[in-house]
């Protein structure tokens, strides 16, 4: 029995947890530097450590789940999560307040965060059974599109455009992985472009449209998000090759850079550690992502392979969108940088993602 568990822990895949911990350590040090001069954010790093601890615990617990059970309960998890999303909307309507949170005693649960994962599970469950031996054509997309669009729409009307679109991006990666024909991809890309245009014109709120305009010309912005973009670029650029040194950020410290503890943490990191430091961090993220991708080819079941690609895409889009936004490559959308940005619910999501990946990796040898 004892020997068994030693064997178990020898075969346990620590790579995901280890990489996450490494990034988090850099993240929390950076968070301390970004907030130490702001009295209202003092001590926020302690909260972050606490959240990280909790989410890693949950991640480890998740890593002991047998992927077979994941497979079995995919739709139930998905359905329950959809129910929570609707509940949030209904309660929000009644309370006339924010419509993102479910309050459970001392905890505030954001169902849209977990929805990213639930959608991946449900889509994987569908795709692994629907003629996996051939590529997809357009009509194969009818049912899975429902799986992806229902939560996306529910989240967008919360309103949380960023997370809603993220789910669609994840869906896109999975569809691509499931060998959608190139012809179909071309058609979809075309439709996507048109509907994007229509969305921009009619579907977006004023502030969201402004952000896109700001992105196109940040220097002529009226609302002030162009200001963030410019200040962020100054912060990053002023780091030059080696950076200004730890705790020496001036842009952030002087409150020139707003939101420097959530969405804009990466620019503070760049300012202080320069090109070299940023390169190091980017390589860390890349290793983690490639580890996911490698795992997707090494698993024994197709379901698990799809899940891993899905989890990878959650991680990938967050990282790419956040970094691009901070560097002025994309409009400002509020997506956090995994394990770097302050925030309990995003830490929880990534903790579960890491836990699921570890569980799937372990299942190759253990279950």
């Amino acid at each position: 029995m004892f020997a068994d568990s030693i064997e178990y822990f020898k075969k346990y895949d620590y790579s995901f947890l280890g990489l996450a911990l490494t990034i988090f350590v850099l993240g929390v040090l950076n968070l301390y530097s970004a907030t130490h001069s702001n009295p209202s954010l003092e001590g926020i790093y302690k909260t972050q450590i606490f959240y990280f601890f909790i989410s890693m615990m949950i991640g480890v617990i998740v890593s002991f789940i047998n992927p077979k059970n994941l497979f079995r309960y995919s739709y139930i998890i998905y359905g329950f999560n959809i129910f929570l999303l609707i509940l949030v909307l209904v309660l929000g309507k009644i309370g006339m307040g924010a419509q993102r949170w479910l309050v459970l005693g001392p905890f505030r649960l954001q169902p849209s965060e977990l929805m990213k994962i639930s959608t991946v599970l449900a889509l994987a469950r569908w795709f692994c059974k629907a003629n996996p031996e051939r590529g997809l054509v357009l009509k194969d997309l009818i049912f899975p599109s429902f799986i992806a669009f229902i939560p996306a729409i529910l989240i967008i009307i919360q309103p949380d455009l960023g997370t809603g679109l993220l789910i669609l991006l994840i869906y896109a990666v999975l569809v691509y992985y499931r060998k959608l024909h190139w012809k179909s991809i071309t058609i979809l890309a075309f439709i996507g472009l048109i509907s994007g245009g229509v969305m921009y014109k009619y579907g977006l709120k004023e502030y969201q449209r402004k952000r896109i305009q700001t992105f196109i010309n940040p220097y002529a912005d009226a609302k002030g998000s162009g200001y963030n973009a410019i200040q962020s670029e100054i912060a990053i650029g002023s780091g030059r090759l080696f950076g200004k040194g730890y705790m020496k950020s001036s842009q952030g410290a002087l409150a020139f850079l707003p939101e420097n503890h959530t969405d804009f943490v990466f620019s503070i990191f760049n300012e202080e550690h320069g090109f070299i430091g940023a390169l190091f961090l980017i390589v860390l993220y890349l290793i983690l992502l490639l580890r996911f991708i490698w795992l997707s080819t090494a698993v024994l079941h197709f379901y698990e392979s799809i899940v891993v690609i899905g989890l990878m895409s959650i991680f990938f889009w967050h990282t790419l969108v956040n970094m691009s936004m901070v560097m002025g490559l994309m409009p400002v959308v509020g997506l956090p940088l995994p394990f770097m940005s302050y925030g309990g619910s995003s830490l929880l999501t990534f903790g579960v993602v890491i836990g699921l990946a570890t569980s799937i990796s372990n299942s190759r040898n253990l279950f």
Partner: protein
Amino acid sequence: MFAEDDIIKFHRRRVTIIAYIVTISFLVLVLRLWFLQIYKGETLHEYSVQNRLRKEVVRAPRGLIYSRNGQILVDNFPRFDAVVTRQFLKKRKKTIKRLSQILDISVKSIEKMIRKNSSQAKYIPITIKKNISSKEMALIETENSELPGVSVNAFISREYLHKEIGAHALGYISEISQEQLPKFRKRDKLDYRLGDFIGQFGIEEQWDRTLRGISGHEYVEVDALGRKNKYINTDNLFKGIEDQASIPGQSLKLTLDSDLQQAGYHALVGDEKNRAKFPNKVGSVVALDVKTGEILAMVSNPSFDPSQFSRGLSADYWSQLINDDNNPLRDRNIQEHYSPGSTFKPFTAIAALEEGVINEKSKIRCHGTFKLGRKVYHSWRKFGTEKVNIVDALMQSCNIFFYKVATELDIDVLAKYAKMFGLGSRSGISLPREVSGLIPTREWKMKRNGVDWQLGETLSCSIGQSYVLTSTLQLAIAYGAIANEGKVFKPIIVKEIIDRDGTVIEKRKAEVTREIKLKQSTWDLVKKGLYQVVNSPNGTAWWRRGFGLEMAGKTGTAQVVSSSADKIYDKCENKPYEQRHHGIFVGFAPFDNPRIAVASMVEHGCHGSSAAAPVVAAVINEYMEKYMPKEKRENEKKQTAQYRRYLAKRQQAEEAKKKEEQLEEDE
């Protein structure tokens, strides 16, 4: 069926492409980093070290407030503060010494002020002297380079030109508080910041969003010493960056007439030189245009000076306000409710007439007491008079008449009529924190006390005592509805919303919330009764009829504490202040074609006739003088003639009596 690993192999190519896409995306990020940090690094570094771009909020000028005649009631004036920013305070000693000379404040106290704020972030400016003179400002500006860290902050002070008069209606603005900040951000979805001034009372509060405008911002380059170097111009990184001009707030034209406001306020405040005759009355007065539902005057006393709040309230003034037992920060027109006393009787009369309990011919003897079971109800006069009808009962305010009527009226029926006239519910005027008052019903009492309604309570309610509570504004509206025979208004106080360039954006009209349909005879009888109150020598307000007013109305005296039977006829003026009755008067004028209804309540004023009626008469007098001078002159003539006739009649009667007596003596 394929094996699982064949399927995975089948998808390998796509995985490889995904891996490439991920890697290439990250390469693009690295390229961008290289562009920013290596290629443009020097330039951007320069910016972050030497020059800082600061975004400064430009607050929108707040809209002005005008009276109905276009006079400015609330205005904005520029004021200047001298401030020190610690972050840039180099050459500290020299700078502070020079600053102390300029501002005429000792070095020590400047140091003290800076130390007091040392826990704040260094870049937050500390105010050294408020409201500096233009000379001081000029000195600071010219010696700018010698005074690093010192600057002048301009701000706009909100000034209320009539000070205490009507302060409650206008309200005040003051800095948003720490507690309000998150609440209001959520409520208004506006990015309020500390230091923002927002409306906290009255029209300033209710109409804050209209008045405040939208603040803009401008970008200022600040050098390492915190001095504004130049505004962003061409040829640098920020080329093309745009400032955003603020959008000024919209102005309001009120329905208030400042002359009527003055008249009402002075009638309440009295005359300091002759306190015996003109005491300072704690109370309020409100006037309503009965044709349009516009509030013409709305004054409450004691009051406060709203300008003080926008200048930064001194601790002294604040403690003085909140420690005053008479609570100057309360608008007694809408934020307080009282027993209406006898001013409620017309509504009892209307209910009785409409329900057929009485008609114009019904007469009841006005005894001094009325017994119901074991309880004895008193009239306000000790000795009963002759039998009276409804008109006379109103005129003399005969309690017994209404007690008897009430025994045949169910409380729910009485409540139905009172509520019809808007009593016991919020008028819906766009001012904050209006109270609703109360008109009791059986259901209400059951809910509240769990006890059944008692007939005796109906009696008390019929003369406006017991549970009945109304606000002064409600009384004005209800009497307005009697005056115009049925129109109950949701009154307005803002008449027009005006843009900065003077164009009228919105004209507002008062809604008629209810059209009451009653028998014409009911209107006529009640109105006649109210007319007699003021214009018959036997009426309770005969001595307050004024000159040429053609006023109708009703006095009311509300007991504050119920007094025992033996004390009921004690002179009110001899009681301790807190135990004296509230005096109430509500009236409208001119009688034939009513234009204005006015209600006044004077706390512990003892009698409606002596305390409140003069206030109402003063406001109506001002109205008639201003808007209907011709009619007033005619009325005056008519009144004089009538009075002469009355005197002559009385003289004749006296002479006849004397003659009789003489005859008797002779015999």
